């Protein structure tokens, strides 16, 4: 590279090393320039129906929110008796609880080491605290305007949908935050209901639909995918039906949303894969693939 007079330039081959002085100028571009460049080595192939199946998680969560809002509306209007909702909720919870253990034959319970006593205790804590706090909840937002409460609830439910753990591996996902936002929204909405019993039952229902139902869903999806698809369809139609009884336009829009998420979005994802161009080379930061936490445990 330096000004060394070299007679047989043709015979000397350029080497990609720095420690030797080579008879080429510093800005020499060899044939081998960028030969280690790779494109799309980690790109995945997607199957349409598999993507549609995966999108059902999103559909489920949208439907959960929809069902919750519909039920709240019924309660607020006085069309739904709280006792009835409580009874239904209790019954479905018990069925779900039994199902939860039946699906994998008690394997998950053995693995986590959680006793039934702990479950009972959790349930008792839920019920007691909600019941004890329900009068406070009732008067909590008295002086705050209804619009503010609605805005807050919408914001929180949206947050719940955004941060929910749909199975993607991203930094934004936080199931804790998502669940907390849903509970916050339900407390806000429950405080608008006419009586403290209503508030109590609304919050209980929120726990069932936002905390317990996704757990069951996850297990269903893993164990019996077919029944999961059926449950999803059923749930989606019931949510649509409930919404239809309140507002036709809303129902149509919601149906469009569901269809676009479950059918159109997967289609676009697969189409856009054709344009993917991801560059890799020796300059990439190496990834540590092993689990290093074993050295510390």
């Amino acid at each position, binding site marked *: 590279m330096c000004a060394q007079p070299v007679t047989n330039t043709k015979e000397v081959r350029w080497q990609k090393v*720095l420690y030797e002085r080579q008879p080429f100028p510093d800005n020499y571009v060899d044939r081998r320039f960028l030969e280690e460049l790779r494109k799309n080595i980690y790109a995945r192939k997607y199957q349409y129906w598999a993507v549609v199946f995966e999108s059902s998680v999103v559909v489920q969560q949208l439907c959960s929110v929809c069902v919750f809002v519909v039920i709240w509306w019924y309660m607020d209007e006085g069309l739904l008796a709280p006792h009835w909702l409580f009874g239904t909720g209790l019954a479905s919870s018990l069925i779900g609880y039994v199902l939860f253990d039946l699906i994998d034959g008690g394997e998950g319970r053995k693995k986590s080491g959680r006793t039934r006593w702990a479950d009972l205790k959790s349930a008792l804590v839920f019920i007691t605290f909600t019941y004890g706090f329900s009068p406070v909840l009732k008067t909590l937002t008295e002086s705050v305007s209804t619009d503010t409460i609605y805005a807050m609830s919408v914001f929180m439910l949206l947050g719940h949908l955004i941060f929910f753990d749909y199975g993607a591996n991203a930094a934004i996902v936080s199931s804790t935050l998502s669940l907390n936002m849903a509970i916050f929204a339900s407390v806000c909405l429950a405080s608008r209901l006419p009586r403290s019993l209503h508030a109590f039952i609304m919050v209980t229902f929120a726990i069932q639909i936002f905390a317990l139902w996704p757990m069951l869903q996850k297990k269903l999806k893993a164990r019996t995918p077919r029944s999961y698809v059926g449950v999803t369809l059923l749930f989606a139609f019931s949510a649509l039906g409930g919404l239809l009884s309140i507002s036709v336009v809303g129902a149509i829009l919601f149906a469009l949303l569901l269809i676009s998420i479950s059918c159109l979005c997967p289609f676009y994802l697969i189409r856009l894969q054709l344009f993917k161009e991801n560059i890799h080379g020796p300059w990439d930061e190496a990834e*540590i693939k092993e689990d290093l936490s074993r050295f510390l445990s």
Partner: protein
Amino acid sequence: MACRGRGGPGQPPSAALSPVSPGSLSASRTSAHNICMVSDFFYPNMGGVESHIYQLSQCLIERGHKVIVVTHAYGTRKGIRYLTNGLKVYYLPLKVMYNQSTATTLFHSLPLLRYIFVRERVTIIHSHSSFSAMAHDALFHAKTMGLQTVFTDHSLFGFADVSSVLTNKLLTVSLCDTNHIICVSFTSKENTVLRAALNPEIVSVIPNAVDPTDFTPDPFRRHDSIITVIVVSRLVYRKGTDLLSGIIPELCQKYPDLHFIIGGEGPKRIILEEVRERYQLHDRVRLLGALEHKDVRNVLVQGHIFLNTSLTEAFCMAIVEAASCGLQVVSTRVGGIPEVLPESLIILCEPSVKSLCEGLEKAIFQLRSGMLPAPEDIHNIVKTFYTWRNVAERTEKVYDRVAEEAVLPMDQRLDRLISHCGPVTGYIFALLAVFNFLFLVLLRWIIPDSIIDVAVDATGPRGTWTHQHPHSEDKVEDSGKCKTR
């Protein structure tokens, strides 16, 4: 450049203080340049970029060029200082935003930088490090002022995530009309060419260097009854400290006479401490904490093997320093590391605990069987590889080439920005360039170039430092005073 029409009342009595008009300068000596190194990273901050700038400047001064360094103020170190051989450093009072890099608005630094460029009669702006906002600002302003620009990239960047997409876009904008780019390794060149969508012809590869006299082996400092592995790096994720935390227990269980000395500080230090505690290795793993540059050699000579676990590296100075001290180097095969040392001096591994352990075991086996060359021999081989004089020589060629080139006039620059950087970014930055130009016109109207007085050259063809101050330099150095107002 500013031109001074009228001379002062009475002819200048001393050559040192005479007005240097650019025309006369270029006529008198074409090969001497007035170079301004700009980077956020300079001493007293420590690191590869800092020592690169310093050593390169020293060698360029030795070769008769005028060199000044512009950086931001570090604590109480602000104003103007002179380092060895009259290297003039401007510590500008700019706000530091993150990680010693200044905040950039693309405009606020223009008045000061322009004043400095004019008064120092700078002809070539040499910016360093793509992490430095000030370097990019200076490139932008220099192009507005019509000065030649050179940029040295010291780091590698991926293409996968959102943040790198954005930074790469900014680099594209910054480098699209820069005259020449210097990279420290071939991998870095490929990376930069891809990132900034450059013509590879204007990218030169000039490696970093190590002062071999600073890193000499001292075999008597190490205990031959045990095997010592040295790690010197910042303890952060990018340097692979997590890998290190896996290697230490694995090998310490296997070899009871293996010791580790780890120099450096960082957020990941805590996991090393946890590992040390978990496996009761307090007597065998020493954490030295932050090391000063002058102490690095004393740490290196205590060991037999040097371990580098970096996950990405453009040019690893640490392994050259270690090899220069006569250590067997075990390193990950990432970035430009394979280009740095020949196969005989380095054991390259994949970036995983298993592969690195195998590499270390190989090195230990070689050491025990006496297959390794003597430290002195390794030193003698390595010291021929990289020298700052060679770096300066090659950089000078880049300057010579750049000085011949024409700087794009404003209309062509705008064209290039728009055509080269994509429609949205291109137009935005073309607009910003126009604003910058208007701002410059405003500044020129407020303080015309002719009013700005010319600085006295400390270095370069008319440098006053060497002629006038051999004695005062010593005197001042003894008293160790430093002051500016």
